[in-house]
């Protein structure tokens, strides 16, 4: 089960890999990382339908923003679950993300327990 994490902060990778060490080791979770929206779309487009079960993306990124990317993903891969993560937990971003078909909306600093629940759900489905 592949999950794509999109964030321009590269340390996010280390963070996620450690956080989900058990899931990776024991539950067959595979984490993919993209450091921009563009990179994320490239990964997704390698296979259609994509081999990725879910996308967790930051909104605030240089170049393509997370929300822009969300629109594109929903346009191309309507079934793909996309969760948005934002440093700014404002209603505007939330509304926008939800309207664009985001499954969840997480605010930084990320509550990894709820994130783990979500990933667990994905893994079990």
């Amino acid at each position, binding site marked *: 089960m592949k999950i794509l994490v999109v964030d321009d*902060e590269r*340390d996010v990778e*280390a*963070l996620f890999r*450690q*956080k989900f*060490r058990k899931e990776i080791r024991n539950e067959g979770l595979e984490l993919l990382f993209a450091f921009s929206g563009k990179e994320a779309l490239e990964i997704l487009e390698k296979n259609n339908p994509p081999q990725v079960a879910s996308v967790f993306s930051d909104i*605030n990124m*240089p*170049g*393509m*923003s997370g*929300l*822009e990317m969300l629109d594109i993903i929903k346009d191309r891969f309507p079934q793909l679950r996309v969760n948005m993560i934002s*440093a*700014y937990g*404002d209603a*505007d*971003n939330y509304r*926008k993300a939800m309207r664009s078909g985001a499954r969840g909306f997480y605010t*930084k*600093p*990320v509550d*990894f327990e709820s994130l783990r629940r979500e990933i667990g759900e994905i893994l079990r489905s």
Partner: protein
Amino acid sequence: MKHSIGDLRCMKQAIAVFAICAYLLPYLPGHSQTAESLKADMDRLERVPGYASDTAYLNKGNELGFILAESSPDSAIRFLDIQLQLCREANYKTGEAEALKIYGNALQNKGDFIGSIEYYTSALAIAKGLEGEVLVPGILNNIGLVNYNLGNYAEALNTFYEAIKGADQTKNSNVKAAALNNIALIYFELDKLDDAKEKYREMLAIYQVVGNQGRVILAYNNIGDVELKQKRPMEALKNLKIAYQSAMELESPEFIEMTSRTLADIYSELDSTEKAEQLYLQSISMSQANGYGVPYAHSLIGLAGLYYKNGKAEEALDLGKQGLAQAETMAQPMLMRNANELLSRIYEDQGNFEEALKSFQLFKSYNDSINTSHSQRLTASLEAEYEFSKRAMEYERASLRQRWVIFSACAGLVAFLIVLFVEFRNKKNLDKAYHALQEKTNEIASKNEALEKALSQLKAAQAQLIQAEKMASLGELTAGIAHEIQNPLNFVTNFSELSTELIQEIQQERAKKPEEQDPQLLDEILSDIQVNMGKIAQHGKRADSIVKGMLEHSRASTGEKVQTDVKNLINECLRLSFHGMRARDKTFSADFETELQADLPQVNLVAQDISRLLLNLCNNAFYACANPDFRRENPEVKPKVKVTAKIEKDGKSKEWLKISVTDNGPGIPQSIIGKIFQPFFTTKPAGHGTGLGLSLSYDIAKAHGGELDVKSVLGEFTTFTVFLPV
């Protein structure tokens, strides 16, 4: 006729006297001294050694000589020979000229006219060589008198005229009056009685001003004489009464004799026989006593005529003979003629026809001679008059010139006053203008003060604005900064939590039985913890540097240049700007890239200021290409900001750090590209920009000795390039 004949000599004498006196006046104020007192003075001066060259002594000598010349010409001549000698030895020119003139007086009084004129001429030659020529007019007057006595009326008139001119020039009114008298005398002789009277009146006026009583008496006497000749005996009597009264008051025998003689002529004319007789007798006795030769003859003949009129033939004959003899002695043709005429009548009445004929023949002969000489004189005087009028005109012209000069001076003065007045008015106007100017100056000064105050206020305001701009841009950056801090803080939080979890995992692992423990896992966890600690430290520092940068940005510039890592500075600014834009505008979306020369050196600059400059450029670039309106209108454009930095050499091999910030926004229209560096110029909606960003950026570049340029193509790109000296 007989009055005038008799009068002439008398007047001559009187004139000669006063003319000399007039001359002496200026330096002999005490001329009233008697011969005795003068001698006493001289005796006293003689006691001092070297007295002979003492001018005071020599002046006294001349004064005495003058008195002697009048009273005793012969002794005067002896005295004056020595006096002349002394003056010459003392080289006292003034004294010598004076002595020569007095010598001439003495000779004239003796009847030696030719001799006198020689002395006068010598005196004149010396006088003309003296400073101011003050002696000249008096000498000329005396020369004129000699000429008159010689019957040379033309020459006499000329000389008197010269004398008057000289007297005017030397302001010698006494000599002028004397010359006037002498001119009058000639007019009298020529029967120009009105003219003669006019000259006498001029003379009288001068003497009245001068206050010379004797000369006033003479003037009245002579005016009366003219009036008598004009057959106006009553008027003559009035003037002579004044003259006689004055003469009595003056107790002067000369003037008493003279006035009584003229009065006698008048009374004789008026047939006041008794008074006339008495006065003639007085004149005769005084003339005899004082040796007045001509007056003596005149009065003898006058009294003889009076007696004859009153039928006293014997007395008349006797007196007539005496008078004739005296007249012959004095060589007076007029008197001789008058005497012979009278005698011939007496002889005829007595029947002595032989004597009568003789007398008549003599009378006829003198009369012819007089008439001949008279006609000659008339001819001469006509010539003289012509010459005189010419001279007079010349003189008139000269005095006219003088008057013209005076007039010119007056006109000049008036003009000067006018100019002065105009100047005064001008000055007043100038003063007014000056005051107005001063007011203006004060006004300007106070305005200047106000302006300076305003300027300093403006400077303060500008400083405040700069600070406000900083704070505004800081405000713009707040969101970005918050994000920039939030991210590292999140990592710090996350990695520390993670590490705690990892430690718990280790503990759990160690709680297991040793054979169940996975040493590989433990190693993995430990190495993760180590990495995490590194991440915590790294992100802590990152947050720290962001806070420091923010503080630095808000702080006033120290203006201190420090070696700065340009690459870091650019990345920091770019990210800060980007996140700031993103934080404020949720829809914001832009890409950015950097193209930084790999070996970019450290550059000495005021990092704080340059970072502000770069932030401004980046903010503008992101705003230009990624603001919502632009993206809505140009959906196909992918907003992108590119920052490049490299070292370039200019034509003079000088190295420059060149940083360019390019955006693919709409570009800047040519119409406003010239204004973008002006303060307060902004294209942003109200409330979105201070309009100071680029202006301050420009100032910062300039302050670094650098440049800030802009290039833009509408619809394609805008590039701001800053050049900073390395």
